């Protein structure tokens, strides 16, 4: 639906003439079956289907198994594996330097909710243009499975250790902080995740997607609330979605009057096709918060979908009124005030 007709015989190409292979990265060094690898593959599909030119992409991350994944997709894009928990600031700086970049940040639940919660909060306040994915497994995978701040109260590690602290719900927090694109998904639900990712790529501010992404090595056992089984048993999509980019036409099934169309400011529309738990229009903030408050951490529901979408939010580069030309490209001619300007400054100091 979102790609051009395949060239006769050759591999399918997208609207910028690239094949899926052009969006791949290096081989993953994660554990076999790790949820993060599924997300990696879905990211590849999303960028391919959206026809984003890889050289325009900046891939940013912190530290953790999740944060390694930018090396596993979009080899032709620039990557920055920064320090633990502080990717948001690096992403902010990069987007200020070059507003034409398409930035994707990949983080873990430890990287975001434990060490990184401060930068996460302020990233959301600023609404930096960034697709921000939390690969949420409730533990620190890379340091061998300690609880993170999204681990649910009452859940247990393999060795029996109990988590007695309440989990941080990143989606609620994001909505409260003014984030205009807040979604949750599950790495075992590739179909939904793909649509959300494509929609997020059409968004102009911070798009935060919290993805349950099981750690098969340290947190996939019984007693875990971040395992594949738990996720499959509890997932409740709040709606079924399809993203239709600007350059394609919605398929017929979206036009039957049942689907809600949410147009995106930079083109394309999200169609909310089928509604399970009551019709949730993501533009309704209060309803989104209510949904989350009622269902988060309740033993029998793990809601997924786009909770909140504010198509009109103003991004940080717009708030700063930056010129359209990327700052990184400006030379002395554009940046250095004239000799007269310096003389005037000097004169004012005499």
């Amino acid at each position: 639906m979102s790609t051009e007709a395949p060239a006769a015989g050759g591999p399918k190409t997208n609207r910028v003439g690239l094949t899926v292979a052009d969006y791949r990265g290096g081989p993953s060094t994660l554990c076999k079956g790790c949820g993060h690898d599924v997300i990696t593959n879905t990211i590849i599909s999303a960028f391919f289907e959206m026809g984003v030119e890889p050289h325009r992409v900046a891939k940013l991350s912190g530290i953790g198994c999740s944060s390694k994944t930018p090396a596993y997709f979009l080899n032709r894009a620039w990557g920055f594996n920064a320090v633990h928990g502080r990717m948001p600031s690096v992403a902010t700086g990069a987007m200020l330097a070059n507003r034409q970049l398409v930035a994707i940040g990949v983080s873990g639940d430890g990287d975001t909710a434990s060490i990184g919660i401060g930068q996460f909060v302020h990233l959301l306040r600023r609404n930096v243009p960034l697709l921000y994915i939390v690969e949420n497994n409730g533990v620190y995978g890379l340091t061998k499975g300690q609880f993170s701040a999204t681990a649910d109260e009452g859940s247990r590690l393999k060795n029996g250790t109990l988590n007695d602290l309440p989990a941080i719900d990143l989606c609620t927090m994001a909505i409260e902080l003014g984030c205009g694109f807040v979604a949750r998904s599950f790495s075992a639900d590739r179909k939904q995740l793909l649509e959300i990712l494509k929609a997020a790529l059409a968004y102009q501010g911070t798009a935060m997607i919290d993805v349950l992404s099981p750690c098969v090595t340290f947190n996939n056992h019984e007693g875990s609330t971040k395992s594949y089984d738990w996720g499959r048993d509890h997932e409740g999509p709040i709606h079924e979605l399809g993203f239709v980019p600007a350059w394609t036409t919605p398929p017929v099934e979206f036009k039957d009057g049942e689907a809600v169309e949410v147009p995106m400011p930079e083109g394309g529309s999200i169609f909310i096709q089928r509604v399970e738990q009551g019709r949730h229009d993501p533009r309704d903030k209060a309803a989104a918060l209510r949904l989350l408050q009622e269902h988060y951490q309740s033993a029998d529901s793990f809601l997924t979908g786009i909770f909140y979408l504010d198509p009109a939010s103003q991004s940080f580069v717009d708030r700063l009124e930056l010129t359209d030309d990327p700052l990184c490209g400006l030379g002395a001619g554009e940046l250095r005030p004239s000799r007269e300007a310096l003389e005037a400054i000097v004169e004012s100091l005499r």
Partner: protein
Amino acid sequence: MSEPTTAQESATAAHPEPIVNRLSIQVATVNGSGSQTANNTLLRALFQMGIPVSGKNLFPSNIAGLPTWFTIRANEQGYIARRREVDLLVCMNPQTVQDDIDGVPAGATVILDDSLKADTSRADLHFIPAPFQALVRDVCPVTSLRRLVVNMIYVGVVADLIGIEVPEVHAALAKAFAAKPKALELNRAAVDAGVRWARENVKSKSRFRVARMDANGKKLLVDGNTACAIGALFGGVTVATWYPITPSSSLTEALIDLARTHRRDPETGKMKIAIVQAEDELAAIGMVVGAGWAGARAMTATSGPGISLMSEFVGLAYYAEIPAVLFDIQRTGPSTGLPTRTMQGDVLFCAYNSHGDTKHPCLYPANIEEAYDFARRSLDLAERLQTLVFVLSDLDLGMNLWMAEPFEWCADEFDRGKVLDAEALAKAKDWGRYKDVDGDGIPWRTLPGTPGGAGAYFTRGSGHDEYARYTESGEAYARNMDRLKRKIDGCTGLLPGPVAEGDGAPVGILAYGTSHHAVCEARDQLRAEEGLTTDYLRVRSFPFGAEVKEWILRHERVYVVEQNRDGQMRAVLGIEFPEVAPRLRSVRHYDGLPLDARSVSEAIQAAEKGTPR
């Protein structure tokens, strides 16, 4: 503020002849009482009379109510370091008046608000009690404004007593209140009332006098933070981040002001700079690291506590080779320390900041010209070296007003360093992000967004090889670390070199940054009073060039003068040049006040006494 000393430049009370253009004024007021404008008016009027001046604002870490002092030094010889001795004291603060009086040397003149309770029995002082409260009542009908306006009355009294030309005071006032004609009028009236009162009531004027001279040429009066901001503006900064902290805030605030006029596109109204108040220093440095990586000329400004918080990112910038500039306007540490006092306290911490083996270029501006110049050049250096460059200023330089030659405009293109664009990439053979192709340890980089598909690479703080690929190979690691060492050690030719004065003396003095001013004067004192001629080397950057080592080796002993407890520059010199370490002797000053010449000359003199010559 107290320790009574024998005035060296002053004469005893018995000594009658006037002393012209050599005086120090100290004004003791209450923080938040608006005395800053009054003090700057005095400073500016003296400056306009062509007399070399300097002013030091000694303010508390408080918004209003605690004691604050302002000292002005006017000196025909051009000495602008702080002087310990006060010749003319203005007492406006009841909390400190007695200590203030006790602290001045014999022969000083003391002007004091006659409503203050103080012991004025010291016979070696010349007391001039003035009815400031009565005078202000006359000129200022609005009660609430009197607290502010009273300060202008002492300006008038001082002007008359020491001979500041009243038109110059008026001119200085006009500058300060350019946008507020009503306030100008009121303040001018207050100054005039002070002048009138002194003229009519003080029979014996001060022995300390000023007289017009012509030493200041086309000079300006400006603080170092503003100079850095102007330098950064003309150096082409495009992303600046900060988290407010004294004494660095005014650097970014000056930049914000400048950017409003000079970085807004006149046609589109859009900004050609992003200035972001971050939520803390970790974010401030993270943003400049991200910006530098993506091709901005990026800077942040902070002070000691910020440096501590930035350390993790500093290591990343070193190891992943990200250009950015970090202004550290040093204040008295450790910890919160004395946040409104000066110190050269982060020299060692910055040079090798962060865990693991690191080394960072540092620049040490000593004056306004260098504040402007180093700020400007630091952005070039960062991009040329692809590393974090520290500019180590301090509170004294940053927040006080200093005389300076007009800033020079520069027409050169910016040095953007080794960046491959799409075209160059297409031609490049076997490009690797971290390959040393030119033998200088500096690799070629690409900027995110470069079209063509060949320039993408992965940046990380973990082990990487020449092609920026992840590796845990010990050999690749060591190769990379060796290259980094070559890169930083090899950059000395690009940095502002040391400045030497004198040649052939066996005794050397080595200093840097704002210690310079006291050292100049101390060398004259040592020569004049002790007959001791010294050579002098002012270090302006780190890592040091070989000429620093050679200069030290040409001297039997070298006094390293600095404003910290532990002799941090001495430590760094010893690390870099172990063979010279035994020749280095530390002269340290660390009470939070700007260094004065006497502290230097006394320490050297004492040490020399103990040294067989």
